[in-house]
Structure formats: C-alpha cells, structure tokens
C-alpha cells in the first residue's frame, strides 16, 4: 500500500518540481505600496469585496474570460470595489479581497474597474506582475519568443511626491497603468487590439488581449466613436505562453 502511494505521488511531485524549476520568480516577497493614501483616494478604493462575475471558456490552448467590472455602472464606480483576478491553469479566477487588503496581497494578478486595468505591481500592489505591449502584434502568433527583447512595465504611475501620472487619454484621473494601451478614447472606450505579454510574479508568462470592453456595441464604438452598452463587461483572451 505504501509503495503504491509513493508511486502515484512521485510523478505529481516531479511535475510540480519541474514547473517550479522552469520559471524564475520575479519576486517572492511583497514590496510596500508607496503612495498608499493617494491610491485610496485617487482610485476610490473601497473596504468591500466585489462580486463581479468571472467566466471562462476554453479557447485553444488558452481562454476567453469575461469579467464584470461594471462597478455599479457609469458614474457609480467610485463607490464600488475593484474585481481582482489571477491567471491559473484552470482559467481566470476571482480573488475575493477588499481593495484595501489587496494592497497587502500577492494573491492577485490583475484588477479591473471600468476602463482601468491594474497589475499587481508598483503603485497598484505589492507584487511584481509586469506587462509589455506588443505594438502591431498579432495575438494569435505571439509566443514566448516575443517576450525576449520586449520592455516590461510595472504599474508605476505616481511621482516621488505621489502626484498621479495620467495616461494620454485626456480623461482626468486615469492613471498611466502598464496595460493602458489596450484602449483609446474617441468619445467612448475603444479597443486598440494591442496584445500584451504579461509576466507574473512566478516568472510564468502569458499573452493577453482585450477583445471587448462593452457588453455590446464595441464595434460601434471602435468605428464610430459612439458608446456601447454595459461598459466594464470585459472579454479577455489569454493564454500561457510558457
């Protein structure tokens, strides 16, 4: 009996060890979020947990995931918490955590509320998740090779004196997060089709693209600048690349 157990467990143990050996962790310990009060105020972080729905549908080697980051709808997001998720082999998993507790946690990789996607790094969180935008990249063709030579960015959007660095959208209070290139603002939140390579704290990498921000009407926004419906109903396509 004992022999049988060991023989069953060994491959699992080997497999786990193999994965650990493949990825070089970027960080293993949390780093303090530097502009804590400013972040709470500027991003209206809440002492509450989001119940935003997260779904997953297999998509080849990867996933198509939806994230409900509508946060109470237009004009109400300042009073609602962010949705926190992590990338797993079983799909995108919601991490049920308050905004404030998230600033102490390495459990999550990505946070979403309306049109802002934060990574758990830099000003946004204590981990070291980074992203590289692959301009003119083709999501389908992206591979681990595209990560080599790419420039990865953490969510560093505060100056040393904790003044927020805004993105180029022209919208006030929209921080220059690493994933900002996923959208533009021709009068609505248009998708840019810019894919990203995301490097997790574990060192594992994935490719990611935002297919839709609106529950419906994304194409109308992209082509005509007219807002769609249900802003914040994300459709994300992603796949581990190593």
């Amino acid at each position, binding site marked *: 009996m004992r022999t049988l157990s060991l023989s069953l467990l060994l491959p699992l143990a080997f497999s786990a060890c193999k994965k650990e050996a493949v990825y070089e962790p970027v960080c293993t310990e949390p780093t303090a979020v530097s502009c*804590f009060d400013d972040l709470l105020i500027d991003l209206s972080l809440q002492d509450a947990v989001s119940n935003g729905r997260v779904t997953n549908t297999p998509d080849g080697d990867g996933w198509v995931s939806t994230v409900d980051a509508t946060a109470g709808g237009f004009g109400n997001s300042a009073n609602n918490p962010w949705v926190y998720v992590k990338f797993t082999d079983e799909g995108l998993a919601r991490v049920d955590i308050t905004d404030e507790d998230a600033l102490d946690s390495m459990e999550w990789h990505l946070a979403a509320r309306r049109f802002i996607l934060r990574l758990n790094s830099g000003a946004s969180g204590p981990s070291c998740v980074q992203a590289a935008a692959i301009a003119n990249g083709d999501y389908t063709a992206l591979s681990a090779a595209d990560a080599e030579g790419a420039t990865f960015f953490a969510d560093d959007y505060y100056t040393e004196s904790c003044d927020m660095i805004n993105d180029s959208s022209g919208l006030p209070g929209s921080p220059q997060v690493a994933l900002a290139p996923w959208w533009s603002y021709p009068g609505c939140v248009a998708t840019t089709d810019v894919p990203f390579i995301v490097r997790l704290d574990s060192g594992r990498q994935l490719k990611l693209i935002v297919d839709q921000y609106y529950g419906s009407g994304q194409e109308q926004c992209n082509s005509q600048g007219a807002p769609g419906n249900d802003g914040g109903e994300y459709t994300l396509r992603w796949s581990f690349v190593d």
Partner: protein
Amino acid sequence: MLVTLALVASARPYSTIGFETDDLIETLDSETGAVRVHFSVEGPSATWIQDDDADGEPDFPMHALVVAEESLILYGLLGLEPLVPEADFGVEHGGSAAIDVYMPEFIQGADGSWRSDVCDDERCTGHLLVDHRFSNWADPDDGLDTVVPHELFHGIQAAYSPDWPVWFSEGTATWAERQYIDDSFDFMGFAGAYLDDVSRPIDRPPAGPVPSFAYGACLFFDFLTLRHDATLMTEILELGSIDVLADPDADLMATIDAALQARSDTLEAAWVDFARWNLAVGNRAGGVESYPYAERLGAPQPEERGAFLDVDPRYFAYGTIYLRLAHEGGPMALWAEDDGSAVHLDLFPADGTEDIQPSVWTGTLDAGTQELGDLPAGTYFLLGTVPTRVDQSINVRLCLGASADVAGCAEEPEPTDEDGGGCGCRTSPSGLGWAVPIGLLGLVSRRR
C-alpha cells in the same frame, strides 16, 4: 436691440462655437452693452423663440441676457473682480466689446461651459456657452438661472488666475448658483454628492470625468459664507490667486484658513462645525444648528452602525466619518488601540425621530479607554473628523458601546495584518500633493 448677423468668419467664428452653417443666428445686446447673447432662430441650434410678453424679442434668449446681467451685478456687489475685458488683450470677438453668451446645441450631456480665449500668466478673457433649449430641464428657464451664473463665475475665477484645482473651481461656481437663486435645486443636488462621500477629503475628488463630488464642494463654501458673509468668497479668491499663481499645487485649504484667520476664525474650528452641520441634515435636521435648507439635503450615511462597534475607520484630513450606536443605556465608553489625536470627536444623541440633539461629549481619538458618561438609552452618532492637514491618514481600531463591552476590546486585541499573512507594508510620503490643477486655457465643462 435685435441684430441679425450672417455666419461670418471672425476671430471666434460661429462654426467653432457649435453652430452649424444652416443656423440663422441673431444677437441680443443688453442696454448697458455689457452682455451680448448669440442665438439661432432657425437651424440645428434653434432656441425657443416665443415672445409671450410681446416685446418684440424672443423671451428665452432675453432671459439669458437678463440672468447674465444680473449675475454680473451680483458678483460686483460682492466685490469680485469683473470678467477680464477682451480689450485688455487687444481683441474684440463676437462683434462687440461685450461679454459674449452663445447658445448652441450641446451634445453628450453637458449644458454649459466657460471657454478662455486668451490668457497671460495671471488671467484670461473668454466667453460663455449655454445650451440652446435646456430641453432636459423640467423648466428651461431654470437651466438658464442655474448655468449662466455658474459659467460666468468660471469667468470671474479666470480674472484671478488661469488655473484652479477642479474641486475649487467647480465648488465655488456651484456656490455661485445659490447666490443667484437661493433655493437652487442644482446646488442642493450637488451638495448631496458631497454628503454621499463625506469621508473623502473635500479637496480630493475621485478620478473620472464626472466628478460630482467636486461640484459638491459648494456645500463647504456655502457653509463658510453662511458662517461669515458672502464677501468671504472674494477674500478667498484674492488670497487664492496669490497662492496658485505662485504654486499651481498650492494647498487652498491653507488659503481658506488664512482668509478665516483674517476674520478671527480658523479653518480648524470651521471644519469641525461643518462636520457637525452635515450630520444634522435631512431627517436628522431641526435639533441643532445647521443650514437653513438642511431638511432638503440627504443625510450622510453612517459608516458603521450597531449596538456595539468594533471597527477600524480610516480618517483623512478634511474628511468625516459618522458612526451610529444604538445604546441600551448606562455608562458608555470609547476605546482606541492607538493614538489618533488629530481626529476630533463629538458624540451626538438623536431623539426618537432621529433629530440630532446637542453634543454630550467632545474629545479626540486618544489611545486607551475614555468614559463618555452615563447616558440614557437611544441612538447616538459619533462624529470623527480631521480638521487639520496631516501627513497621512489615521487608521485606528476603536470600540464604542457600553463600558462593560468596550473593556473587552482592550483585553482581546484584533489580529494584525502580519498575523493574517499580509505584508502589512504601507508607506506614505512625508507630504501629499493634495491639489490637482486643471487647465482653464481650454474648456471648463459641467457634468460632462
């Protein structure tokens, strides 16, 4: 006088204002020559052109003209600087030296704006745009009564400085609405946006393109001018212009403090009273001093409520948190795990209909246990506010309730972040850049 103009090319052509080429545009001039209203009588931006009083001129644009003139007179009586004349910059737009009010069709929800045409380092001249019909308003005249004074006040601000932080520019412009219409419902609505989020620092509106909270700062400015008089606003703008011209990130709460000290008052004292007034509004109004319109405001919600509270509120400078306690009667106590003495506290009882009654205890958030008195059963509100600038927020676990229950908090400390596996590692800078300036060279819009 009614003058018909063609769509002409000028330094400020109608096509840049929002009129279309097939708009037939006319103008109305005030008798003083101070204001000219430009409106369309035919085309996409056609305004209401009824002439019910049969004076030969359309009533709606005439109403805009009257409101603009009356607002300027009012602001002059308060001692405010006049709008900067175009001639000071060597330009003449709109066909005259008058202040131009244009009435194009607005899209995307806005209903008015002030646009600066040209600025130097210290001030700007510009013009006003208001919606052609205010069709979204129950009474379009109410739209003019609200938006024209609001946008003109942005022009007044531009006479003091080209740039103001958004909470200050929108808060004071919305304050101006109530100077013109005493019971302005627009003012009341935005005041409610502030009362919905009183724990937020008043000078730090949330991110996003629709900062109703910024407009809601009107309540603070109205409180200040009710506490003193409306000319206090003039003094704040005068001092503020000096400060923001020297440093765009200037702390305007310090400016307000200076203006109050010149009147033998302090911001610290005024802020505490502001927090007290804000508790006694809506269904809680009537028992203690508050706004003359207190019953029209929605009461701020307590952050926590219960018969015994073991909570860890976070207090920001110039933010307020209310806690609601259902007390069974007898000795009441407050316990704090750490010192947070910058937090001013007041304990208010409420009567059977929730009307706030005079405070029964005042103090600060000091570490340890404070006995609040032997108090009868009923509802109590603990007001906590930080009436001074502090380097970082104050996050202290506290217990409030019957003394016997509170004693338990001191004996059984709550687990720390470290116990829970978090990093417990948060830092703040030694100083916070509180003021967020906006560029007034472009457009100041309302409710975009």
